[in-house]
């Protein structure tokens, strides 16, 4: 009995001691990568990794004379090789699980990025909650080298800024890798990505930059990048990006400008917005109906308006309807004419509405899409006018 028991115990001990600690990594052996950038190189890819230097991040411990993050670069034929090659420069293994942003350089985006994404979707270590962003008019490497104020980790700054601007301003889109891939494989929808541009050239690369109260070099989101067949075909400006957000029902909260009926400006806050895109095939012609329902508050009035009257509110609602409808129409027109890429998912809408017709349409959807008839209906309700009724500017005149 005792012999058997001791044999069992020694077997269990061997199990713990011999296999033990397999794949164990202490926290201070990890190079926590928060941002990764992929650029086109002569042969293969140039991968840039932004790695956190933990000691510099935590308050009270930082020496102050070293940057909070370090950027390593490596060039190789495949992305996986390049990431591993970084260990020749870095003391620590690149740990990708906490990746916040994946940045695609403009050149690579224009030439097609699909192949570069395989590693990120395959590797078990990488989570899928990071955002994919296109570096507009620059390389991913340049984006990752910009130091940001307030948020010590630039990648985190990109992540949080994208999150909050999508929530409060609308013309950006938080696209994660799996959303991007599902758009890639969808026949009736093309992907878009948020685009980030570097302002101030190389000024942002040094720590001196963030010692200024108003840094000369910084990162800025500038609209959306339109993709077609895995390749970047162009950008939407801020207004068009907002139109995209309306159509794809991404607007949570934004502010819209409207002009008063008798001159002057007016700002309306959209507090909720719901969009329904319905497809229809009439006489073999695909038709799209966009229904937008928004609720708005009056946020700023710079003209003479009697907001205490019901008719004024109704008038404002009409104005808001026209405004949103015009944003949407301009966006659709621009995409249909210039990019011919179905980023709104009109194809999917038609597929849902009329699968039989879609089977014929999808063959040359690329050519049909620019000719699709789009009808926009906006219904706005103004809920609140703020803490004052009429603007104090009006009272003085009386």
């Amino acid at each position, binding site marked *: 009995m005792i012999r058997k028991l001791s044999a069992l115990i020694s077997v269990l001990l061997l199990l*713990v*001691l011999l*296999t*033990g*600690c397999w*794949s*164990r*990594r*202490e*926290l*201070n052996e*990890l190079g*926590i990568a*928060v941002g990764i950038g992929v650029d086109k190189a002569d042969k293969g890819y140039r991968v840039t990794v932004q790695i*956190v230097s*933990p*000691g510099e*991040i*935590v308050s009270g*411990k930082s020496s102050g004379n070293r940057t909070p993050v370090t950027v390593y670069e490596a060039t190789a034929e495949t992305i996986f090789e390049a990431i591993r090659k970084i260990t020749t420069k870095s003391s620590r293994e690149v*740990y990708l*699980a*906490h990746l*916040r942003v994946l940045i695609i350089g403009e050149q690579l985006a224009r030439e097609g990025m699909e192949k570069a994404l395989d590693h990120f979707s395959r590797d078990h*270590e990488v*989570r899928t909650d990071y955002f994919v962003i296109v570096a507009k008019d620059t390389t991913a490497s340049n984006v990752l080298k910009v130091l940001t104020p307030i948020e010590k*980790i630039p990648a*985190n700054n990109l992540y949080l800024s994208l999150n909050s601007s999508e929530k409060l301003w609308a013309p950006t889109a938080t696209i994660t890798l799996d959303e991007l891939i599902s758009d890639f494989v969808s026949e009736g929808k093309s992907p878009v990505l948020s685009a980030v541009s570097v302002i101030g050239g190389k000024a942002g690369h040094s720590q001196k930059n963030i010692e200024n109260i108003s840094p000369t070099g910084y990162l800025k989101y500038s609209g959306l990048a339109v993709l077609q067949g895995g390749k970047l075909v162009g950008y939407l400006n801020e207004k068009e990006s907002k139109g995209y957000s309306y159509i794809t029902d991404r607007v949570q909260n934004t502010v819209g400008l409207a002009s008063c009926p008798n001159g002057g400006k007016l700002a309306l806050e959209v507090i909720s917005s719901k969009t329904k895109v319905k497809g229809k095939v009439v006489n073999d012609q695909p038709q799209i109906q966009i229904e937008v329902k928004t609720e708005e508050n009056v946020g700023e009035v710079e003209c003479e308006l009697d907001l205490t009257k019901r008719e004024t509110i109704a008038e404002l609602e009409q104005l808001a309807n026209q405004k949103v409808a015009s944003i949407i129409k301009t966006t659709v027109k621009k995409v249909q004419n210039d990019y011919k890429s179905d980023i709104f998912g009109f194809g999917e809408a038609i597929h849902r509405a009329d699968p039989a017709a879609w089977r014929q349409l999808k063959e040359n959807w690329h050519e049909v899409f620019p000719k699709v008839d789009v009808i926009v209906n906006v219904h706005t309700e103004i809920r609140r006018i703020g803490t004052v009724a009429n603007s104090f500017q009006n009272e003085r005149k009386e």
Partner: protein
Amino acid sequence: MDNNMPQAEPIKVKLQPNIDKIRKDLGNSDDIVIREIAFGVARAAIIYTDGLADKKMITDFILETPDQTTERDNLLEALKELAQKLGDYKEITNFQEIYSSILSGGTVLLLDGCSRGVSASTQGWKDRSISEPISQVVVRGPQEGFTETLRTNTSMIRRKIKNPNLWVETRQIGKVTKTDVAIMYINGIVNGKVVKEVRKRLDKINIDGILESGYIEELIQDETYSPFPTVNNSERPDSVAAALLEGRVAILVDGTPFVLIVPTLFISFFQTAEDYYQRADISTLLRMIRFISLFIAMVGPALYIGITTFHQELLPTQLLISLAAQREGVPFPAFIEALLMEITFEILREAGIRMPRPIGQAVSIVGTLVIGQAAVEAGIVSASMVIVVAITAISSFVITGYSMAISVRMLRFVIMGLAAAFGVFGIVVALIALVMHLCSLRSFGVPYMSPFAPFIPDDHKDTIFRLPHWAMTSRPRLISQRNIIREQMSRPAKPQK
């Protein structure tokens, strides 16, 4: 054995040989007092142990010796009559009885020319007065705790339950110490089989001495090779009374304030007396805190080790970075770091408990400085590890049953080792093994994990939740199998509308 203890030799007729024999058998011990007095026409001897017997009672007795006129034949009767005035008496015929009487505080009276004696109970030794129970303190509730005297302890329970069905069975265990052990239960509520089993297990004990109820606990528990206690103990008469009312059996041992309670369930170690004295909702909340504490005390450091060395992806990014920053420059792996701190803490705790109270404070000051400040500043351990160890230590104090808290302390190290080798997977394996083991345990025939496994919905009124008293209508099903109705459902009185 028989060399040590005098045989059951009958008392001789003549007084002097009896006295000589007693002197010889007890090794002329100084504290055995033999006083020879004139008792009427005959001589008599009063024998008692100094310090155990009440001297005042004996003196009163001596003053009342009968006059010379009493017939010699009636002297024994007179002796009995006198003894009766002292309290209960017993007629004795052999030396065995003499010894057991005087050694437990009685007084033996021997008469010259008579082969029988009388033993009177004159117990009156110095004992500790009833004081606050130090191991189970409550804010609200009775502040009295058991003492070292068995009789005082039984009386304290009797005062709580004035019912003829509260039965006490006493026996002597320990071949040398002859320790009194009492079994208490409420007839009609208790499960007869459990009482029978308790008797059987107690009778099987064959040991030279019982100095504390821990001896009994170890000798009668169901499973020796288990980290979990299957016998509960209490210092509080109210807790024991509550256990009796639920149909449990209490085992009281002379010489210790700790009373054993069987059968004991896992859940018993998370219930305190105070749970029933304060409002039900608060008690429920406190119970939940105790379960959370159990979890932290058992797997706290293990989770920290497992997650930071194997599953860094589980942490929020900000937390990961701040933990990583703290680990910069720490020379040991997380496991060694945790082990170092845990062992330091256990040393401090042990030192604090065993030290005389004034020195204990000094120990704790040094300990706080060593653990809290210096170790972190010297860069030997990370600040977060100190937090983890500290919260674990405090959590382990929350578990009300001390015997359970000790087992959790022990298991913590095992789980830490597994976490260091296999990460969270190791912790899960350890917990599964623990649950399997817990479910296999029994305490006097009752499944240890009931009412969780087997699941008894009715008994959940007093587990994680503590329902109001008016809703606690039945006794735990598996403990009191015969008489489980405690009260009729009775809503509390409300003001009339």
